[in-house]
């Protein structure tokens, strides 16, 4: 970008070849000099972020040093495994598919989740599907409202605002999914003497859209500095299968289909990217608003929401607090 006047979606365009080279060099450097591991484990969800992360890993260290894990469960979208399979085939990596439903069943996830939803919707039970949604920062003036949306087996939809207890219990139960997956990733990493690659993009990393010690845990995070739009750019450059690149982002966490922008982000990712970039670079809301077709006041609200989320999720980034420094341990 040569001047703020030219602020547009093109602002986020990067030199994909150069970026890939840089990331690959840093992956190799990290493995060799810091992590001292021989390869990388990547959990593959069939989404764009994990696909690009795996492709970068392959480009950096070769397909024989990358191990892919597909970890669907009962609530995963049907297309998940065919998409992750296509990425595995494309990359030519060794992989394993583990249905994590029995593990989740054993820790009581499905029962705990249903019990928690029933606190808000007493009729909820077998055959129902549900998801959590957040109020639009444009429609609701005030604190974010979190609601559970449930669909009965005969298609009736019920929406209830979530009070504290069911909200916390739903989130706590759901976090079992990301933590179970991470546990398996580290099992394979330990078995192979590999490290674990995390898959957050910049929006997720900055806004705390991850589970602590779940998908937030990793030894390196190759795309955490990249806006989601840029991840798509790299996906194209790296030849990620088209069906993966064309699929709208999903949380793939709840049984009812859920877009990331109805659960967490206030805007679809392309617009959210520009707002985050604009805020990070001190660009006036009016300029960003013009580029994405919103009102300046709306972009101002997104800027404020970005700050709110940064504050709320700071805990997720924190390392354990020590009561006193241990100077001999340098990381």
């Amino acid at each position: 970008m040569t001047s703020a006047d030219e602020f547009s979606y093109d602002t986020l365009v990067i030199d994909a070849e150069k970026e890939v080279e840089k990331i690959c060099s840093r992956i190799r450097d990290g493995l060799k000099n810091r992590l001292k591991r021989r390869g990388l484990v990547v959990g593959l969800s069939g989404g764009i972020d994990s696909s690009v992360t795996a492709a970068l890993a392959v480009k950096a260290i070769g397909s024989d040093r990358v191990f892919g894990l597909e970890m669907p469960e009962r609530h995963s979208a049907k297309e998940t495994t065919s998409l992750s399979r296509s990425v595995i085939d494309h990359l030519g990596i060794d992989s394993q598919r583990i249905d994590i439903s029995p593990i989740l069943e054993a820790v009581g996830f499905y029962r705990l989740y249903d019990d928690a939803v029933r606190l808000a919707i007493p009729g909820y039970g077998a055959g129902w599907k549900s998801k959590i949604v957040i109020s639009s920062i444009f429609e609701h003036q005030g604190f974010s409202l979190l609601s559970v949306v449930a669909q009965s087996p005969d298609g009736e939809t019920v929406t209830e605002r979530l009070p504290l207890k069911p909200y916390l219990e739903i989130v706590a139960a759901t976090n079992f999914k990301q933590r179970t997956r991470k546990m398996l990733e580290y099992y394979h990493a330990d078995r192979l003497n590999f490290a674990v690659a995390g898959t957050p993009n910049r929006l997720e990393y900055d806004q705390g859209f991850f589970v602590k010690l779940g998908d937030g845990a990793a030894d390196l995070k190759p795309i955490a500095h990249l806006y989601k739009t840029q991840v798509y750019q790299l996906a194209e450059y790296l030849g990620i299968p088209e069906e993966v690149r064309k699929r709208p982002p999903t949380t793939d966490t709840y049984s009812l289909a859920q877009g990331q922008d109805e659960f967490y982000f206030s805007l679809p990712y392309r617009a959210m990217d520009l707002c985050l970039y604009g805020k990070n670079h001190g660009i006036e809301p009016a300029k960003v608003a013009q580029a994405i077709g919103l009102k300046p006041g709306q972009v101002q609200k997104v800027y404020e929401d970005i700050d709110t989320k940064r504050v709320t999720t700071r805990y997720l980034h924190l390392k354990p607090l020590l009561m006193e420094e241990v100077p001999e341990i340098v990381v």
Partner: protein
Amino acid sequence: MSETREQVRAYIVDNFLFGDDSGLEDSTSFLESGMIDSTGILEVISFLEEQFSIKVHDEELIPENLDSIGNIVGFLGAKMAVA
């Protein structure tokens, strides 16, 4: 109203500040001071609904009602006057 204020203040000090109320004024913004985040606001709502037997409606979930001890006391006053 001063009894209500004391109840609210005692809850805030106990639940969020672990008993240390230094610097906490009736006008201190919970959000701006970083004392309470969005999950904390859910805790506040839960406390108000249980303690004062009220129902906080969606449109009432705004900083003007909930973001300081003073705002909460004012909100409760208006709410209970209607009840």
